[in-house]
């Protein structure tokens, strides 16, 4: 009896040690242990949900991003009431000069900000991944040519190019008839961000691919006569995903901030649409009279970027604990 019990105990102890955890599970455990990361994740989900559900939320609150409200501005077109006209009807106050609801403007604005950030991030990563694997795996002439081109882009003053060329490019896009007005501006902005954005990721993937292709399991696959396609898809890609996920989570806040910066500078969408950058650049003109109008979008933008950054850090720590900060 005792013997059997002991054996069972031993067994269970043994089985505990033997339990195989997949890398995903290990990462998830590590992530859960990081309190800051969890809160950042919750905050990120909250912001994303708010943004996606903007039409529903604004309906519940009873505001609208296109309505120009009557009787909310004084004779100098400044919001009536303290803190930029914050009230139960208008939880974040009113836009000076026009009289739209700031809460609704920011909610719908965040949709555009997230849209630009997501498209740019995923496009940049897809391109960087494709070219990175191709050049890293096949090396040779293609690698050196693409490498020089990437160096050229990295050393290029991309910000100036975006500011200088966006207007003529938008006009060209409109003339061709691909898109109009804000759609054209968003398209051009995304193209620029991707064009100058893929190189960093490409370099990372290329160097990882180069080290992976020398590893035994790749050699073994090659020895067994596996095609390059199979090696890339089955042997290399699964090992590159963690890098990609980390890069995505760290790129997203960067692109959100970039979108805000460019629309602040007048590149990107224009009124009557709104994004964080547009609201902020507008608010700068009113900071003496209506500081709330400047502070509120600032705080929200900081919160979003901070949450995404902390989440990104936590994801990196979880997936790749050896990587130094």
């Amino acid at each position, binding site marked *: 009896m005792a013997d059997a019990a002991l054996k069972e105990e031993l067994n269970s102890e043994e089985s505990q040690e033997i339990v195989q955890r997949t890398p995903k599970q290990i990462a998830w455990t590590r992530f859960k242990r990081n309190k800051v990361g969890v809160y950042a994740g919750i905050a990120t989900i909250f912001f994303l949900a708010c943004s996606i559900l903007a039409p529903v939320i604004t309906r519940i609150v009873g505001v609208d991003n296109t309505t120009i409200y009557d009787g909310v*501005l004084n004779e100098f077109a400044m919001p009536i009431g303290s803190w930029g006209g914050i009230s139960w009807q208008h939880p974040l106050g009113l836009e000076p000069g*026009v009289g739209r609801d700031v809460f609704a403007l920011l909610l719908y604005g965040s949709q555009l900000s997230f849209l630009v950030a997501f498209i740019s991030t995923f496009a940049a990563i897809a391109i960087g991944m494709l070219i990175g694997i191709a050049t890293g795996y096949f090396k040779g002439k293609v690698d050196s040519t693409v490498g020089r081109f990437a160096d050229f882009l990295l050393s290029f003053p991309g910000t100036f190019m975006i500011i200088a060329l966006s207007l003529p490019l938008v006009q060209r896009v409109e003339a061709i008839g691909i898109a109009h007005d804000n759609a054209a501006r968003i398209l051009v902005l995304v193209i620029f961000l991707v064009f100058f954005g893929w190189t960093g990721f490409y370099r990372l993937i290329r160097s990882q691919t180069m080290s992976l292709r020398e590893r035994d399991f790749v050699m073994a696959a090659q020895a067994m006569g596996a095609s390059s396609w199979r090696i890339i898809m089955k042997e290399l890609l699964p090992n590159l995903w963690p890098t990609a996920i980390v890069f995505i989570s760290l790129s997203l806040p960067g692109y959100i901030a970039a979108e805000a910066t460019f629309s602040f500078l007048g590149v990107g969408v224009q*009124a*009557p649409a709104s994004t964080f950058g547009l609201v902020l650049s507008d608010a700068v003109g009113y900071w003496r009279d209506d500081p709330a109008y400047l502070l509120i979008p600032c705080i929200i933008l900081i919160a979003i970027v901070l949450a995404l950054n902390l989440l990104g850090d936590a994801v990196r720590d979880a997936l790749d604990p050896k990587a130094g900060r």
Partner: protein
Amino acid sequence: MKFHFWFTTRELEPLLQGGHMSGLKTSRRILASTAAIALAVGVTVASGTSANAAEKPVTGGTLYFVTNAEQFDHIDPARVYTGRDIAFLNSYLYRNLVSYKPVAGSAGSSLVADLATNTGVPSNAAKTWKFTLRAGITWEDGSPITCADVKYGVSRPFASDVITDGPQYLVQALDIPTDKDGASVYKGPYKKTGQAAFDKAVSCSGNTITFNLNRSFADFNYALTYPAGAPVKASKDTGDKYDLRPFASGPYKITSYKIGDQLELERNTAWKKSSDTVRTPYPDNIVVRFGLAEDVRDQILLEDQIPNTVSLDSLQPANTRAFFADPTKKSQRFNVYDPYVRYAAMNVKKGHMDCLDVRKAVFFAINTQALIDLSGGREFYGDPGDNPVKPVLGLDYKKTTGNIHDANWKITGNPTYAASLLEKAKTSCPDAYSRATAADKGIVWDIANTATNQKAAVLIGDATKAAGINMKFNFIPSGQYYSTVQNRDKQNDISSAGWGADWANASTVIPELFTKEGGFNLSQNWDDAAYAAFKKKSDATKVETNRTKQAKGWQELSQYVMDQYWIIRPVFSKTQDVWGSQVGGVYYWEPQGTFGFGQLYVKN
């Protein structure tokens, strides 16, 4: 007169170059496209004369001026065109044949003799003008100002390769033949091509100078209030460099002028009070400090840090409000109607706003109240107007009928009535109707790309949408705005604009804005069925020498313009100026739209 000082050199240059190349008249008092931001926000004010006008002026001291600008656009008399700069330089540095009377109110728009003994003697149906120079007038080196100096000064604007940006009245009005491109055959005193033709048009006999003009020009002497008609001593003319150090004939001369830093003036000892009935130079020194950051400039005035300072600029909107809200600064500010009318020009060319009902629909739909509030409210931005001519022009302004006096007009917009006008357009002009309402077409409004205009676009778009009009906006960078919309092919359906009379006669407004030859026609109205009759009357009124009859003509033409809705929603705009607590003798010099500089003094 002049561009307003909001106009930066950068904005001005493309315009004037365009004018020279095409041989067209160059436009003058176009309102800077970004001006709306400069004006804004505040509380009530006294206007006109300073409250302390009764005080006795004090001689001596240093008077400071501060500005955000890096320099005066020009100080060469033939090139200066900004009302504020003309007033400043004419008061201190140089003298003209005639001058505006240096007093407050509408009396300031009358002329007084300056270098001349009277305000000019017209003859030959005002095609010939004679001026006789008074005795005892001198340059800063003590040499007398002669008729030849005046003649030389008048010849300089003809050298359009060197003397740029100045007013073109003399070039256009003097009876000198033109070549096939419309340019004068006289090429100025440097090249001397066509000198004989100029000598015929402007001649000296003793102390009397005679101008022969190519048309009846009843108010030619007003054109001579521009320093482009001021004397220049030929031996002191340095061509392009004269813009840095003009030779003084007024009560002050230049000690130093550093662009981006400061301009210093000291007394011109050769100037004699007995020879000048216009100027009263009180301060010993005058210093203009350039390139101050806007916040710094505003702080100096708000906290009275340098009490003997006058701001050459309007303060920033929020600071203007703060300044005007302070009861202790009551005698350090004025809030007055500036010389400008801001309006939206309808491009009535076929395929654009060629339908009267659609033009009216746009006008009645717009929420005027919201647009005025946006730019600073009625107190600080201006009032809804009913005329291309501003009431400050006196004689030539008469309240029109229709437009804002129409029973259907509401200051907050009347979308219902606008929709009914649009419904009428469906049958009266189906093409224009479909352009205005179709989702893929719409009306395109040209507007300068500024923060305020971005918001105005939202307000206009919202109001016109309620009436069923699809309004789109073409935002043009501020510096390129007027050069873009003045290009007849690039101008869209509606264009925002602003214009001020060059002197108190609507001959500098109506023909400029609404005839094909005008320097600032944004209506492109010469194919309009209503144009022929208008043009005939305008031409007749322009050469009318009976001022009362002429005024009646302009009044009727203004009514005509408003009835055709060639422009909509004119705004009679305002401007605000402030100064320090130790500056005395301040008043608003109406014809120049700025301070009467000559009477300023520093209190003890």
